[in-house]
Structure formats: C-alpha cells, structure tokens
C-alpha cells in the first residue's frame, strides 16, 4: 500500500510539472548529477507573454519569429557500473532573455512578440551529455509611438 501511495505521488508530481502558467515562477534549471564540480547555468523562470490585445492597432506585423537558448551538461561516471557515482559539470545560458536576444538580433527593428509558444528541446545521450534548450516561437511586430511634438 505504501508503494502504491509513493507511485501515486510520483505520478501526480509528473502530471503537475507538465502544466504551469508561463507567468508563474517555474525554474527550468538542468538537474545536476552526482558530484558537481562546476555549475554555471542560466535558465528560464517566468515570462508573462503578450497576447494580441497587447499589440497596438497600428503596429506592423513581422510574421513568425523564433529564438533558442541552451544549457549544456556533462556527467562522467567514476566506475563502469549502472549505479556508479558520476562527476558532472554544467554551463550555459538557456534563459528567456537569451532566446529573445536571438530574436532581436535576427530582427533588429522588432518591438515585441505575442502569441508566444515556449517549448523545451532536450537531447541526452546515456546521461553523459545533455543539452536542454528553450525554444520561443511567436509573432513579431514593429511599432513606433506617435511623436508627441507633431501637430495634430
């Protein structure tokens, strides 16, 4: 009965982790493994994205834009065993800001993005090498506020 309860708690935790509001803090740090020798990662936490209502009516649509930022991790087992302790290191900037920076570098005239979808791209090989990327996909727009000094 205790084993079933523990399994049920694990299932609930996994299900809960799959659903979160993007404006609530939800750290996306890569999990360290074993003995951590070096850890220097930046990861997504929260992002209150724009919706179409937030876009000014006279904004110029720039179409679909995307940006990506990644964290990298390496874990080396100390012995040739499935339960061996490993030494690991992780580095990278996989945060929202880096992903948005990539978008602004590709579109220097962009003002903002809306209708944003955020996905996580995970690549892992035997647990030795892992790359976790945040992919931001949205619709870009360009807008300049009206000049207050111009005559009406």
């Amino acid at each position: 009965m205790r084993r079933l309860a523990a399994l049920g708690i694990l299932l609930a935790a996994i299900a809960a982790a799959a659903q979160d509001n993007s404006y609530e803090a939800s750290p996306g740090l890569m999990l360290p493994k074993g003995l951590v020798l070096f850890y220097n990662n930046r990861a997504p936490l929260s992002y209150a994205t724009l919706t179409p209502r937030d876009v000014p009516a006279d904004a110029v649509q720039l179409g679909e834009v995307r940006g990506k930022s990644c964290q990298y991790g390496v874990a080396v087992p100390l012995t040739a065993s499935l339960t061996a302790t490993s030494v690991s290191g992780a580095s990278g900037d996989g945060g929202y800001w880096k992903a948005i920076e990539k978008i602004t570098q590709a579109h220097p005239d962009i003002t903002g993005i809306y209708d944003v979808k955020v996905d996580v791209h995970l690549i892992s090989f035997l647990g030795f090498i892992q790359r976790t990327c945040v992919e931001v996909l949205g619709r870009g727009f360009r807008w300049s506020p009206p000049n207050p000094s111009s005559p009406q």
Partner: protein
Amino acid sequence: MRIHLLPSLILAAAILSGCGLVYTNIHSPRGYRSATPADVKVAPDDPTVTGRSCSRAILYTVAWGDSGYAAATARALEGKPGLILYDVKSDIKVTAIGLGLYTEVCTIVTGKAGRP
C-alpha cells in the same frame, strides 16, 4: 517476487517522462499564454480546430519526437494562414503499452481560429 521500490519509481518516472535512458531527443511543452476572445476579431463562423504533437519512447532506451506547443498549434492552424488560436484548451495524453515498453506522450490543443 520482491519489488524494489526505488528502481520501480525510477522506471515509472522514465516511462511517464517520455525520456530514453540511452538517447533522448524530444521537444516538450513549457508555456503558452493563448489568446482569449477579447484578443481577436471574433466571428460567429470561426472554425474549431485541433492539433496534436507527440513524442515517443521505446524499450525505455530511445525517445524522440516533438510534443511541444509550437508543433501542436502549427498543426491546428494548418491551411489557415494569418489566423490565430483563441479560447484554447490544452491537454496531455499519455499512452503506455506493455509496462511502458512503448510510450507516447502527446500535447493536444483545441481552440477556435480567428483573425488577430
């Protein structure tokens, strides 16, 4: 047969996370602040559309696929350029067969397509 708790929990996590113990290359959903009817130009004939994106894992070893929001919304809006999803309901569907020997994790988005 004695079942060890910790390996069982790890195996359950591997099955339900959709990851492979040897090789993993998956996209998974993280966040999507979808539009509401107040955000778009609602029309009474706006179609209801649905899109699904899935990642899969086999034999607990290899996992691949794209179950992210971007792929699901793109499939929902296939053939409808310039439209945007609103009033979106997102679901996750997990299928595991044979104690998780084959696992499929899908993101399903259902909503209406309207003009932004």
